């Protein structure tokens, strides 16, 4: 079980609306900042936890050379197989990123994942693709279902 949990790869694709690209942004630094709540579609699961939503924050600067810096943090909220509430947190440092042709940004780094059951994994790679209406999160090798924003905002500029 422990081995299984440690190998959990978390991913989520948060599908949002198309993001208008910032003219000229690709040629320079781009920032992605956000503070929001998210909503998972039915059936989203991670490590035996049925996910319903999340809260998250991001503060990232992406450079034209593909490097990036900043932080990403999310708390994924759900219930375990016994129906008990469970929160899984992902706290990541951002090291790389890019502005995509559709105006979204993708950034990645390594994270600490607290599975909410006493088990904490460190050094877990993660990737986020964010738009102003949602985001896509990949942690390790697991892709979570897409998530749209509830309250709050994501700003890409």
């Amino acid at each position, binding site marked *: 079980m422990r081995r299984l949990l440690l190998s959990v790869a978390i991913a989520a694709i948060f599908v949002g609306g198309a993001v208008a690209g910032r003219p000229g942004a690709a040629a320079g630094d781009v*920032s992605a*900042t956000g503070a929001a709540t998210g909503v998972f579609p039915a059936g989203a699961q991670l490590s035996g936890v049925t996910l319903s939503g999340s809260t*998250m924050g991001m503060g990232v600067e992406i450079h034209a050379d593909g490097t990036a810096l900043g*932080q990403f943090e999310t708390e994924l909220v759900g219930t375990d197989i016994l129906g008990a509430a469970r929160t899984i947190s992902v706290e990541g440092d951002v090291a790389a990123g890019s502005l995509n042709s559709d105006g979204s940004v993708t950034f990645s780094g390594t994270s600490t994942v607290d599975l909410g059951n006493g088990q904490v994994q460190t050094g877990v790679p993660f990737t986020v693709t964010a738009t102003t209406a949602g985001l896509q999160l990949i942690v390790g090798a697991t892709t979570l279902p897409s998530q749209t924003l509830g309250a*709050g905002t994501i700003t890409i500029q």
Partner: protein
Amino acid sequence: MTTDVGPTRPGLRVLRSFALAASVVLTSASVALAAPARGEPQSTGLTPDLTQSVAAVAPAALPLISRNVPAFTNNDCGVANAAQLANDSSYDSQWRSCDVPLTILTAVYLAYDLSSVAPANRSHVLVAWYNDPATLPYDHSYVPVHPCCVGTALDIPSDYTIEGNAAPGGGAYPTTGWVVITSVSGNHFHSRQHLIDFTGYNWLRINVTGSDGSPGASDARMNLDVHNASAGAQDDWIFFGDSITEIGLEHNSMSGAGGSGTWAQLINAANPSFFPAFEDGGIGGAVSQDGVNNINTWLALFAGHYVGLAYGTNDAGFQVTPTDFYNNYVTMVQAVISTGKIPVVPTIPWGCTTTIQQNAPALNQKIADLYAAYPQIIHGPDLWAYFQANQALISSDCVHPTQQGFVALRQQWANAMLANVYNSGTTTPPPTTNSVVTGAGAFTGASGKANFGFKIRQTGTVVSGHFNYSNKTDGVTFDCPVTTLSISGNSATFGSSGGRCTYQVTVQDIAKPGTGKDTFNLTSPVESNGGTLTKGDIAVRTGV
């Protein structure tokens, strides 16, 4: 100021001045008789040290730009309390409206034509109004831990807006075109300040629609200063303390006792490069626990940088233990530091009651311990040493200075800050290094659980960035640009002014990861919220 201070004012002054003394003296019965004779040297356990142990850097200047600019009002009681009294060089005079019930329909305004000030010097301004010493305590509605004094509100603006107008200056007061920049309701403090983006405006006014006063004094009364804050609001101070601070740092000249101006005017006279903004946060009867109980609320209202913490006389009177006194100060100092501001701490003044003589030296030793533990503290004046050496300046209550003593106390505060802050070297240079501050996380504060994310880059003097905030509890969100940034050590303060995006955030990067360590504090007209991160991290990077 109007010369009409009201018939109750002299008596009120006596009450404020001596109620504290009574409470202290009464706890020790005939203590005054048992007190050592004046002139007998008493050890504080402290080596008088007006030299800052840690090199302080002088703040960027906050020049006063409203002095004698054209001032207008719609209510000055038939010129008796003219608008010009609010911005002349005398703080002994104030603009005051006639005593009418203030409502939206009977609003009174005080307006300044700032068009003669170069636009670059008024793009960002600090607006500070001072009702004191009409109203004596900083917060007349606050009842201290040991209630001692009756705080009476006289003509405090309780509901008002600060507004700008782009109409050309040099002529008549514009009756239209006013834009609300910030608004306040329910105020009960005798002074307030607002750091605002004034870009594009020529005129500034405070429009008062409500008063926190008392019978015969329920209108609006104030001096109002506008400072050029284009280099930030570093040279902005507030002094919290008891009645000794309350009286000693009032906005008046004390000319009747030989004084020559407010504390800021003393600083300006000695070093004309500076004219600090300052508020008097003294409340009669307060002990250090009162500071602890209120420090976060007070700091949320204060846009400036230096925070005086001057308690202890009443702690000595009420025999607060040195450990409790120290812990109270630690709480206050940490609160100040966590918001990116700088604490300033003097010693407890010498006095001749038995309780002060017996207890204050041990408390002053704790202040020495505090200096050692927190090198960020700017040393205030050594008021024990000063009044011990000048005992004739302590009044017959053995607690408060005489009127001349208060003049001397104010000068001691000026001397110490001139030595330890203003003349400490060069002024803060404009930022020349590049900095990046980023953060993302969550915390639970007084206003609920919130998430945030921000990125700010400073290249030379240019600051750009963005800030997002979402409070899950009350639904408040921010999606705002960042236009100002100041970094002090591992702390950063950023924000912007204007409309919905008027806010200031102070973060502290204590550890990595920041969970349980780093701090986040938001202040704004919409919401003030902050705390230690429950998730996430903050990174303050300089020289990048």
